[in-house]
């Protein structure tokens, strides 16, 4: 098995963005995931979001751990540096990368095994550290590369492919992210591009820790009757409480918000998340609301999706550490080395 480059051939009339780039310029190499894998839809949504935001791809760093989801970054943003690290440890590698250069956009791509099983510790800690990054979990409740074992997000009572019932409680990463202090929290479905693309755009624009749990069915090992992560189950049980639209900073606002129905939240960079809530009493700025809404829907057997919590302007790791404005990896010898005179003074203090 080797890497298959994708043909660069495309229709000459493809629309271009502000950078003069087409959608195709944001693609990666040919996917080697199973045909119909939800993760490829997540990748396509990332491509769409970056294209629409006119992000220069080389200013994005994409990092992942190990697993099907972690292979996915190879298949999008071919002009970005990528790092396929160690199983469950993408958060710490991203923390280091971010510390080194605060000016890039960090996109972490992970899965339910990578984040909720082996990497649960690093996941919890990167959230509470408020790293400025977008963290996407392509969640299918199963291990793909090792052939279909249940992961820690598989719901209790659901049936795995071999017929075995899951008896352990499933971990809900959205609830965990909320209680650990994430400042942008959403859940979506890989099959719902209309919902997912604006959520990814919002996450990429958010200054702080943005988390999106994307239900992304595994067509090979977890798409059968009895699964709670199959395409059919999710289409039947998805409940969107709030729909969000992302309006970039520079674009002309053509549709005015409708008072009482829509609500605009200004992001750090001046862009807007325009929200439409089916329940007007839902307050997006309260963690407790999100947590109880998730709980209520879970009890009804529904999967709550959409943007669930947003706290723009919260401080993130670099601000908490009070690092200089210049990226640390650009500091010069002169800015870093105290020199021989200082050392001579220090020698005196050790006598």
């Amino acid at each position, binding site marked *: *098995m*080797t*890497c298959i*480059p994708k043909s660069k051939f495309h229709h000459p009339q493809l629309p271009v963005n502000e950078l003069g780039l087409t959608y195709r310029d944001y693609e990666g190499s040919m996917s080697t995931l199973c045909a119909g894998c939800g993760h490829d839809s997540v990748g396509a949504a990332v491509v769409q979001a970056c294209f629409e935001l006119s992000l*220069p*791809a*080389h200013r994005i*760093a994409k*990092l992942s751990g190990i697993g099907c989801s972690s292979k996915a*970054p*190879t298949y999008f943003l*071919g*002009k*970005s*540096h*990528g*790092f*396929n*690290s*160690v199983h469950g*440890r993408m*958060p*710490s*590698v*991203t*923390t*280091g*990368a971010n*510390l*080194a*250069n605060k*000016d*890039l956009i960090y996109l972490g791509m992970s899965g339910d095994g990578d984040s909720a099983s082996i990497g649960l*510790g*690093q996941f919890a*800690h990167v959230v509470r*550290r408020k790293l400025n990054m977008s963290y996407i979990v392509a969640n299918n409740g199963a291990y793909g590369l090792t052939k279909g074992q249940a992961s820690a997000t598989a719901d209790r009572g659901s049936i795995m492919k071999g017929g075995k019932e899951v008896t352990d409680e499933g971990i809900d990463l959205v609830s965990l992210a909320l209680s650990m202090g994430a400042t942008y929290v959403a859940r979506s479905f890989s099959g719902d591009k209309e919902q997912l693309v604006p959520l990814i755009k919002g996450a990429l624009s958010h200054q702080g820790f943005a988390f999106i749990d994307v239900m992304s069915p595994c067509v090979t090992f977890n798409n059968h009757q009895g699964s709670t992560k199959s395409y059919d189950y999710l289409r039947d049980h998805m409940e969107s409480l709030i729909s969000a639209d992302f309006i970039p900073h520079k674009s002309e606002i053509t549709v005015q918000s409708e008072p009482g129905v829509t609500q605009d939240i200004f992001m750090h960079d001046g862009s807007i998340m325009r929200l439409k809530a089916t329940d007007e009493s839902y307050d997006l700025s309260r963690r407790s609301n999100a947590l109880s809404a998730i709980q209520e829907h879970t009890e009804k057997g529904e999967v709550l999706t959409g943007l669930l919590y947003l706290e723009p302007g919260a401080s993130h*790791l*670099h601000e908490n*550490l*009070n*690092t*200089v*404005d210049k990226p*640390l*990896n650009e*500091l010069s*010898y002169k*800015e*870093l*080395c*105290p*020199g*021989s005179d200082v*050392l*001579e003074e*220090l*020698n005196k203090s*050790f*006598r």
Partner: protein
Amino acid sequence: MINPIQSVNDFVIKFANVDGTGSASAKNLFAKAVFNMGVPVSPRNIFPSNIQGLPTWYEVRVNQKGYLGRRGGGVDIVVAMNPQSLADDVAAVLPGGYFLYDSTNPLAKHLQRDDIQIIGIPFTELCRQQFNNTKQRMLFKNVAYIGALAALLDIDFEVFTGLLSKQFNGKEHLVTANTTALELGYVYAKKTFPCPLGIRMEKSDVVGDKILIDGNTASGLGCVYGGATVCGWYPITPSTSVVEAYTRFSERMRVEPATGKKRFGIVQMEDELAAIGVVIGASWNGARAFTATSGPGISLMSEFLGLAYFAEIPLVLINVQRGGPSTGMPTRTQQSDLLACAYASHGDTKHVLTFPANPKECFDFSADAFDLAERLQTPIIIMSDLELGMNDWLSEPLKWDDAKNYDRGKVLNAEQLDNIKEGEKFSRYLDVDNDGICYRTYPGTHSEKGAFFTRGTSRDRHALYTEDGDKYVDNMERLIKKHRTAATLIPSPIINTDNAQHKMGVVYYGTTENVIPESLDKLQKQGFNFNSMRLRGYPFSDEVADFIDSHETLFVIEQNRDAQMRILLINELDCDPRKMIRILHYDGMAIPVQAVVGGILNHLGTEQGSKTGEAS
């Protein structure tokens, strides 16, 4: 019956205290006073893995000749301030030695010895009368016995007052209170006992411009000078003070004057896996990054070390070794992580190690490790130990050459990427210069060129995923070529042949250095002469191989059970195991002179009987 030990500037004194009673700074004051008398001194903390209440010792060797290693055996003077350990402390005194203790509670009959001089001073009672709050009484008791020692050993009182005013710069009330406590012990000793004792001190000038500093402080400072901007870490004894020092010096030297913002980022992570993950991420992204840990942390970091080796990411890891395996002896010293570090991680991995032996090398090797890591694009592991890291050592002053600049290794910038000719392309793992080291790019450098995917899975020269066996082997062979290049870049061994062709050699590394001059002097007196080689890095250079080839017998002296350096030498250089004799000491205390001398003599005495390559 007492035949008192008589010596000038040559003795071992041991302080016995209860941990958590504030004795550390007083004992440090004593060591500094000896140092300021111009006499070589080597103090050692012997402490339990505990916060408060258990016995702790501080053993100070004072030696005019500059022997800094542990002498081994008993001590000349004991200052006994811990009722729990009195019996052991009395027993530790050599015949003719001196036992100073707090006689507020007189020494029990059964503990008394008639072959040593027992000096009782009621420190608790003196402090009770002098100071009115409990905390002061406890703290200043420590200062009072230092004062008594000043009288008993004839240390200039002005040396102490000078040190106090330097330590409490500007805080007059502290200087006064400490001086009062010093005088309390000094005056009592002077008027009660004939001063000085048979053991005494005289001013000297052999210390010269040397400094007194612990290895971890020097390592932390080396990371500042080496340009480290990112540190991910997790607390673990005995490495914690490396990061504490880095933090302290960075806060002092790396804050942007205009804004108060920091030119560094230090994050205490949730475990050692995350700590090294941060270092890998930061290094991948073009910052100089490091972490410090000890044995258990090395085990946890192993998977990541394999990734860094295979994905070719520079990083600096300072391993301050302690007693293993498992939790082992967290507060005792050993050199037992050699193999775990040289071959850390699954699969075929080999790492670059350096072995500092003194604080100057801790500083130099740490600072240089960043150049080395970036040149070689691989982890550099600095193998310190608790003995070096957590004790003060007489060291050459630290030096920095301002003409130096950082060597960032083979990194292409945007302009260089633009200059790549039409029809050619950037290939991350292409060995352009035939030294095994390829060119890399930092993320975000160029909008069209230079992006690649970093992975722990196999890839071809263009960084594309592959499971093709030939391409995998091609890459692995290049990595070993790079490892051989490393042997030419790391610190070379220190070889001493005295211009003589001795048939026997000693091979050692790290803190074992402290006992070598004294051990070889002693062996010479018995008619045995050796050449010596101090290893300072792995992979081994040709010099190392030549030294081993040119000697009939080599004593490999180290502080672990399994003779790990011997294994590494035999394994890497294919040298004859029968001529590599193990001299081992691994009880958690630093190797003493007698272990080296005794071990070698023992082997030489039995050499005719067997040629097994063993020495006890």
